[in-house]
């Protein structure tokens, strides 16, 4: 698998980033001004324009190597949207994308830290630690930041983990009555093509969680709700056959990269 490379600091992009959502609508305009419209969902796509500056030769080399591997616009690669939440169904943990072990009970519609009722109560009714996780078709060796809000009626512990072929990186958090945002940022050496993110709940414990988010960067940004579509694009393409590098000094390389992906499903 080919992946759009991360920068050396683990970021997927730099400001400014332009993101363009594209749809196609067939429109029949009648003489009296009325219109008949039909949405063509199959033609939906997303385009990104990444302005990259201050890149080292190695960082730019990784981009150039990807361009060479895909032969410009010809072949595809996996692109992780630097402006989006990589998880799908970030607020509907009952969806099949979330794998929960037997004994994990979910209660949606709980009050959340944003003042709405979109949080989920997770109860471990079993006798051992149980997990709830989602697996992404994304590189196992990238920098990721997994974040969520959590609270519990009684003080307890909640583990966040990131797991792929090379192993699991877990981090323990204390949950209290008040909402707090838990952030687990990690990077491991791993060549896996999938990576899982999830949480572990101790036996008999209950916690409320909200705003589960994974980003391919070191820190957590503002939460973005997702449904069936997350920020992992398995078939993205360069929009240009040429990658132009401007060098203004040692370690001061810059350029603009444009990527496009169809939106399916």
């Amino acid at each position: 698998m080919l992946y759009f490379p991360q920068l050396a600091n683990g970021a997927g992009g730099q400001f400014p980033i332009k993101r363009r959502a594209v749809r196609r609508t067939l429109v029949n305009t009648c003489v009296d001004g009325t219109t008949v419209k039909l949405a063509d969902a199959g033609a939906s796509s997303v385009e990104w324009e990444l302005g990259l500056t201050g890149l080292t030769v190695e960082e730019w080399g990784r981009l150039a190597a990807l361009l060479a591997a895909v032969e410009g616009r010809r072949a595809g690669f996996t692109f992780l949207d630097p402006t989006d939440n990589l998880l799908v169904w970030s607020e509907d943990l009952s969806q099949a994308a979330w794998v929960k072990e037997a004994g994990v009970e979910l209660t949606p519609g709980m009050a959340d830290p944003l003042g709405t009722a979109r949080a989920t109560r997770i109860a471990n009714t079993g006798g051992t630690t149980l997990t709830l996780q989602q697996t992404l078709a994304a590189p196992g060796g990238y920098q990721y930041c997994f974040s969520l809000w959590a609270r519990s009626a009684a003080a307890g512990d909640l583990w966040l983990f990131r797991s792929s072929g090379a192993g699991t990186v877990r981090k323990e958090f204390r949950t209290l009555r008040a909402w707090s945002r838990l952030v687990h940022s990690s990077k491991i050496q791993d060549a896996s093509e999938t990576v899982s993110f999830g949480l572990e709940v101790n036996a008999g414990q209950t916690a409320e969680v909200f705003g589960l988010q994974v980003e391919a960067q070191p820190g957590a940004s503002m939460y973005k709700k997702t449904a069936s579509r997350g920020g992992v694009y398995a078939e993205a393409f360069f929009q240009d056959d040429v990658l132009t590098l401007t060098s203004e000094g040692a370690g001061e390389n810059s350029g603009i990269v444009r990527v496009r992906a169809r939106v399916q499903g």
Partner: protein
Amino acid sequence: MSAFPRLKTGAVMQYPASRTVEHATRVHRFVDGGEQRYRERGVPLRRWVIRLDRLDEAELQSLQEFFVQAQGRAGTFSFLDPWDDVTYDNCSLEDDDLTVEVSGEMRGRTELRVRENRS
């Protein structure tokens, strides 16, 4: 029916904002210089250009979700015109694409064009 999203402040638009009212008039000019004019539509149609700057990620997300739900210009929604405080129930986006530009934290920018549909 969905409604055009508001910013965190409750506002729909920012300055500079544009609104146009479009009539459709057909004019026939005759050889003798006379003219006959008539309406092609019974009511004028309104258009708004909404330029938004310094948005945070949640506001940008809300606008992008709205665009996806509307399926570009295919969908219809209600739009509250801040000039006259009237809600126009049958409106659509004018474009099939939405570009958001993020130049830093809380520094998102986008532009949408909304039109009132002929009922």
